[in-house]
């Protein structure tokens, strides 16, 4: 019953999205005025309905209703509750439903609370949101129905990919989706503003909390995904330039650029066309990323989501949504009145520079991701990896980081470099000292040296905007910027440290054997079998002592799931203030002369990774900075709103 109900609700939500598009568009015409009144309520109800449809799918997974095909394919009655719930979005159909749910809810919230923009712009915005949603509704209902029944119902489900049965991963996709789809609001605002030619500070202020919110979720999602890959895949790497990682990085780069240009537009009424363009690009990148992952057109480790038949549908959707937005941009951007002017040495110009650099990195990543496709069209198969991505993005990232250090010190509109030169001597000095120190200390890799020396200087420079201020009275938005920029420096240092200082040991150890790794003395104390709810495992007891101190115990496992049957290694990590010890248990080794004789020696992979957790700590700081900025902006908006209401009441 619940499945049919869910499907019916989904159809209703889709029809309301159609109504929202029609009413919103007609209200912009001369005789459609009356229709405008229903657009906001329709958007709200649509959001509520689609959320209900998603809730019914979650219920089906919680109950493990195996007569629903999606549940039978992706769940299992013996799975812990949290993974039953996470299983809802651990598959193609469920994650697309999550996608439209977030779009619907976001549209509903905008309809309910946004009152600053001219009503015509709002109507165009909500119509735009409905237009994009409709495509995804059609995709769900016609090509990926999550509520499809299976007859006869099987006795037991197929289970969830064991790699996905991890608390980090239960929340990683929804976090990223909140980010991807949050950007749809920025996209719709851009459409609304283009249609009505109302691009100005009010538009920027309305858009900003959405951009900030989406960007925070994207930052957290990418950080979590990187950490997941790091400890789950068992090779100690934290970024692989995999197409799916690139798919999440590209919207983040665009959103980062958008975030900064929206601030310029809100504060200075400059960069009008550029901001609108980025608003379109950011969500387009979300859609393109999803397309690349889902269509199977690029091979990737995230192959669980691939189905080539759906590729055509998503591509058509993309072509319509993005194509229409770009045609609108080409027609209207020229008529958007010119923004305020500024000089080359000014805060605006430094933000423009960084925006251009971010866009270049975006281009590099997009090109690298698509390159195999391009050459294949010419008959040559190649694959593109870290040796391309890392140095090519560094070419643009390094100048960007330098300007990131200087920009916040500059004044709006025009400034003289001579004014800030003295202040900048300190970060420059720190960078030089770090560079010389690390080079003498034996860091040979140029990329690592660059990261390790830029990071401290950048950290110092990021704090400089607080200089001479009363710290408790500095505005929260300033703190947000400082914290986010410090986060970039922290993450950069972690990346450099990972490349420069990581030590590894691979050995076949028998129980009782010890080995030295950097400051650690590690002993394999025992190997014992253990069992979980839907797996069994062999677990090593590793006793590790740091520089002769009291030993800590790590328990890496070689784990065998029985539904679906699959073996994964579960790494064990121990974090100390200056780094992380990373241990993986492999298989028992066999005698070289006879494969049947076990040797009682176990493969151990051990890494000592100094300062590597700074990568993710930095990511969290960046997101925290975003959060501070968002709180500050929303508080300002609320204050402005109450002032407006009061003045209106006084007039009345």
């Amino acid at each position, binding site marked *: 019953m619940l499945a049919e109900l869910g499907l019916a609700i989904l159809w209703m939500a889709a029809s309301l999205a159609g109504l929202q598009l029609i009413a919103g568009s007609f209200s912009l015409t001369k005789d459609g005025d009356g229709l405008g009144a229903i657009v906001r309520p329709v958007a709200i109800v649509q959001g509520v309905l689609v959320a209900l449809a998603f809730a019914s799918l979650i219920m089906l997974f919680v109950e493990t209703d195996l007569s629903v095909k999606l549940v039978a394919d992706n769940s299992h009655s013996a799975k812990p509750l949290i993974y039953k719930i996470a299983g809802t979005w651990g598959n193609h159909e469920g994650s697309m439903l999550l996608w439209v749910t977030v779009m619907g809810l976001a549209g509903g919230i905008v309809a309910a609370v946004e009152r600053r923009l001219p009503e015509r712009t709002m109507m165009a915005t909500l119509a735009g949101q409905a237009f994009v949603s409709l495509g995804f509704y059609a995709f769900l209902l016609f090509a990926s129905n999550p509520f499809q029944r299976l007859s006869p119902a099987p006795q037991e489900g197929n289970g969830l990919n064991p790699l996905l049965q991890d608390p980090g991963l239960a929340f990683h996709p929804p976090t990223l989706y909140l980010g991807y789809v949050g950007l749809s609001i920025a996209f719709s605002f851009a459409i609304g503003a283009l249609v009505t030619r109302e691009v100005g500070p009010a538009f920027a202020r309305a858009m900003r909390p959405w951009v900030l919110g989406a960007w925070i979720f994207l930052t957290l999602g990418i950080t979590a995904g990187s950490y997941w890959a790091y400890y789950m895949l068992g090779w100690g790497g934290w970024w692989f330039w995999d197409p799916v990682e690139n798919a999440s990085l590209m919207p983040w780069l665009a959103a980062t650029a958008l975030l900064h240009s929206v601030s310029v537009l809100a504060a200075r009424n400059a960069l009008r066309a550029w901001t609108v363009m980025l608003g379109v690009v950011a969500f387009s990148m979300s859609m393109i990323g999803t397309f690349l992952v889902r269509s199977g057109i690029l091979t990737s480790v995230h192959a669980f989501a691939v189905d*080539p038949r759906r590729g055509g549908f998503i*591509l058509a959707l993309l072509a319509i949504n993005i*194509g229409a937005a770009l045609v609108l941009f080409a027609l209207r951007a020229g008529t958007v009145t010119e923004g305020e002017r500024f000089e080359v040495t000014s805060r605006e110009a430094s933000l423009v520079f960084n925006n251009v650099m971010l866009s270049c990195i975006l281009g590099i990543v997009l090109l690298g991701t698509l390159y195999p496709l391009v050459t294949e069209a010419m008959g040559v198969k190649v694959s593109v990896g870290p040796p391309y991505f890392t140095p090519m993005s560094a070419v643009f990232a390094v100048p960007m980081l330098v300007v990131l250090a200087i920009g916040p010190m500059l004044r709006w509109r025009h400034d003289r470099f001579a004014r800030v030169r003295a202040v900048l001597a300190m970060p420059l000095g720190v960078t030089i000292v770090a560079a010389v120190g690390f080079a003498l200390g034996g860091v040979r890799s140029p990329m690592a040296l660059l990261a390790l020396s830029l990071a401290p200087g950048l950290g110092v420079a990021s704090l400089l905007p607080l200089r001479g201020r009363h710290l408790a009275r500095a505005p929260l938005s300033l703190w947000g910027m400082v914290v986010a920029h410090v986060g970039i420096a922290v993450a950069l240092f972690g990346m450099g440290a990972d490349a420069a200082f990581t030590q590894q040991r691979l050995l076949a150890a028998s129980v009782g054997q010890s080995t030295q790794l950097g400051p650690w003395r590690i002993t394999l104390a025992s190997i014992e079998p253990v069992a979980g709810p839907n797996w069994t495992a062999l677990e090593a007891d590793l006793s590790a002592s740091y520089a002769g101190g009291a030993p800590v115990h790590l328990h890496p496992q070689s784990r065998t799931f029985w539904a679906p049957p699959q073996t994964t290694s579960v790494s064990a990590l121990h974090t100390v203030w200056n780094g992380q010890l990373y241990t993986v248990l492999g298989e028992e080794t066999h005698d070289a002369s006879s494969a049947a004789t076990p040797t009682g020696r176990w493969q151990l992979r051990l890494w000592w990774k100094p300062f590597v957790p700074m990568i993710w700590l930095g990511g969290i700081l960046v997101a925290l900075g975003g959060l501070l900025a968002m709180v500050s902006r929303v508080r300002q908006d609320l204050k402005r709103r109450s002032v407006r209401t009061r003045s209106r009441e006084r007039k009345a």
Partner: protein
Amino acid sequence: MSNEVNPAKAPRWTLWLPLALFLGFVVLVAAGLMHPRDTDIDSQMIGKPLPAFSLRAASDGRDGLSTSDFRQGKPHLLNIFASWCVPCGVEAPVLAQLQRQGAIIDGIAIRDHKADLNAFLAKNGNPYQKIGADDVSAVQLAIGSSGVPETFVIDGKGIIRYQHIGDIRYEEIPMMMQKLKDAES
């Protein structure tokens, strides 16, 4: 003022540029969708001769590698690897063991830099007779390999006899030696 920046003052036609780029993207991926990519190229090469290639030396101290090296009458192992590939480091002692047992091993280093590779070999040992550099994975893909490490058994006439995907484990050494022996006939 001469040095004022005004980003909105671009010529009109540039506004159509994003759309043009996007349409290029759509055409490209539509073409890609219509010719579905052959992802299962693993074992199709078995029984076929190696594709013709001639790769420059990837490291100091070892010559480059070309197809003719495999036509000398003795079976070889061809190991596809890279210094940036962690499993390849795990595999190194296994390759060393294979070499001690008499296997002739040649390598193709994928998208590697000479300095990195020299460091990798210095650290993990060098069981290779020759190492060719494949900078864009062209040879790798031509012989049907989709990742690193992979190891091919090539017989004395340059015919691919067996493909092993992933690192060779200790317990697989006898199996690989047997495959080499089979390739002699």
